[in-house]
């Protein structure tokens, strides 16, 4: 068996009680540690549903999700929170930065959720990451006082803060122009290569998908294509 950092086993997701929509059909898939994966598929095919279930933000109707070899099925909300805090980094289409805080404070947030107070070392690290995503100059700006691309890069920096094993990104460049988009993917690749972080990225952009190590296509809640380069 391959060395999967995250794996779904026969996951079903059914929405609604009276009118039932099946978003995922008995889906089993694993992602190797350090891999760079793209998930593609038509709108409504179930990509976000799958990513949110992998990220333990949502629970499957049936089946289970195994992260780091541990099943998340019977974990409490608190335990899932700790797991997300320690092992997962999220980047969504919308940045979800806290507008009341500066870029640096936003990046520190996952660390403070775990430790309470940011120490010198963690502040240094946050600054380094901001430097890595090219935001050294605006680190003390309130997140509302930044451009869309800067906000999204801040969100990426935040996702990296706690040394996550996996970054889950749902159309992370959906709101960005093509030049900024390229920058973001180059950044992802760099982090993937330098830190060995696993990436699972949902994208509509074929051009982007083709640069990934593996492309998974979802159609109507099932995997219909799985290419490993």
């Amino acid at each position, binding site marked *: 068996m391959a060395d999967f950092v995250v794996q779904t086993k026969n996951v079903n997701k059914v929405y609604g009680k009276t009118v039932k929509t099946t978003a995922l059909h008995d889906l089993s898939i694993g992602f190797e540690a350090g891999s760079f994966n793209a998930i593609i598929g038509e709108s409504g095919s179930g990509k976000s549903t799958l990513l*949110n279930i992998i*990220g333990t*933000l*949502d629970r499957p109707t049936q089946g289970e999700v195994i992260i780091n070899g541990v099943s998340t099925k019977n974990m409490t*909300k*608190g335990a899932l*929170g*700790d*797991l*997300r*805090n*320690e092992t997962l980094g*999220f980047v*969504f289409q*919308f940045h*979800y930065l*806290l*507008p*009341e*805080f500066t870029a640096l404070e936003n990046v520190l*947030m*996952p660390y*403070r*959720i*775990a430790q*309470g*107070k940011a120490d010198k070392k963690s502040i240094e690290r946050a600054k380094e990451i901001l430097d890595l995503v090219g935001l050294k100059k605006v680190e003390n700006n309130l997140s509302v006082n930044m451009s869309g691309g800067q906000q999204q890069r801040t969100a990426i920096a*935040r996702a990296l803060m706690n040394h996550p094993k996996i970054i889950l990104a749902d159309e992370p460049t959906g709101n960005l122009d093509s030049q900024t988009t390229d920058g973001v993917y180059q950044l992802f690749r760099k982090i993937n290569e330098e830190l060995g972080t696993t990436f699972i990225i949902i994208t509509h952009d074929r051009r982007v998908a083709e640069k990934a190590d593996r492309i998974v296509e979802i159609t109507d809640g099932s995997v219909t294509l799985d290419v490993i380069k």
Partner: protein
Amino acid sequence: MRLAFSIALRFLKSSKGQTALIVLGIAIGVSVQIFIGSLITGLQKSLVDKTVGSASQITVESVTEGDYIQDSADKMVAIQKSNPDEIINLMAVAQGPAILKTPDDSTTIILRGFDWEDAEGIYKIKERLTTGNLGNNRNDIIVGQDLAEKLNVAVGDTIEMITPTGMKDNFLVTGIFDLQIKSLNESWILTNLNTAQTFLETNEGVSRIEMQVNDVFGADLVALDVERALNDETLTVTNWKIENAALLSGLSGQTASSLMIQVFVMISVVLGIASVLAISVVQKSRQIGILKAMGMHNQRASLVFLFQGVLLGILGAIAGVGLGVGLSWSFATFVVNADGTSVVPLYIDWYFIGISAGIAILASTLASLIPAIRVSKLDPMEVIKNG
């Protein structure tokens, strides 16, 4: 804890208008409480002071009317010892009725004799003397203003009095007093203790021992101490609270109604805070959702809102105390009688203010409980789905 607190602080800082509004709401509630509280207390204090401030608050008398208390000096020492912290202005009075005769009129008066110095505490005779002075010689007396007018006597005149037992003597008027109570001004003639004891044939005895207490409302308890210390069946101890039961029940009615007002003010403050914080939960749901997605536990997320309640309560209480004390002070300073004295004297009770501020903080914390519970139930998926 720490993160929740700093997020709470940041949320409050970033929506300054909303924060100011809630703080103002709490502050007005607290200040109304303090204002009404000190108004009512000030009113009651001045009323009680007017009623018993210049009168005996605990009185020791013989059970049999007209009997005199012997060895009064020893008894006064025992009384003072029974509760040395509370009992003040202790004095002995020798008194009795007498008929006053002028060439064309006769009237019944009460002759009261006491040591002028001892009596200064309760009656402040020196201040009340309108003309003349206190006579220390045998058969020197001072007469109430209204009586003097009625009988047409002045300082330097001599008047004749007869006791019910037939003693007859002449007295020199050395001064005229005004106790500001007409019935006393008409019926009292005051003299030194010696004169009264001799003329009334008390045989060194006194009619009553009078005293005041530091805490007027505790007079009944002190009276019990006095009774126990004297341990004498021939003596009876009374206190002002028994004699003024009607006044006291009026006061407690007033206290109850002011309490009602305060309770309703506080309820409206709580409702105000709860609704504004509830709105802010909706406004901040995106932030809370992402914090939870990043692993913040439900209880911590709730703490953010509880801390906001506590902080708002503290800020509101501080502002309210300032406003309330200022309001009470202005009222006492600017709402004055024709003679320049306050209609209601300022009475600032820091203990009451402390309780009022404490209740405000408690209430706003309670009010934040509802939004805190809502926050703990917020599912991050809702936020992430709906942007």
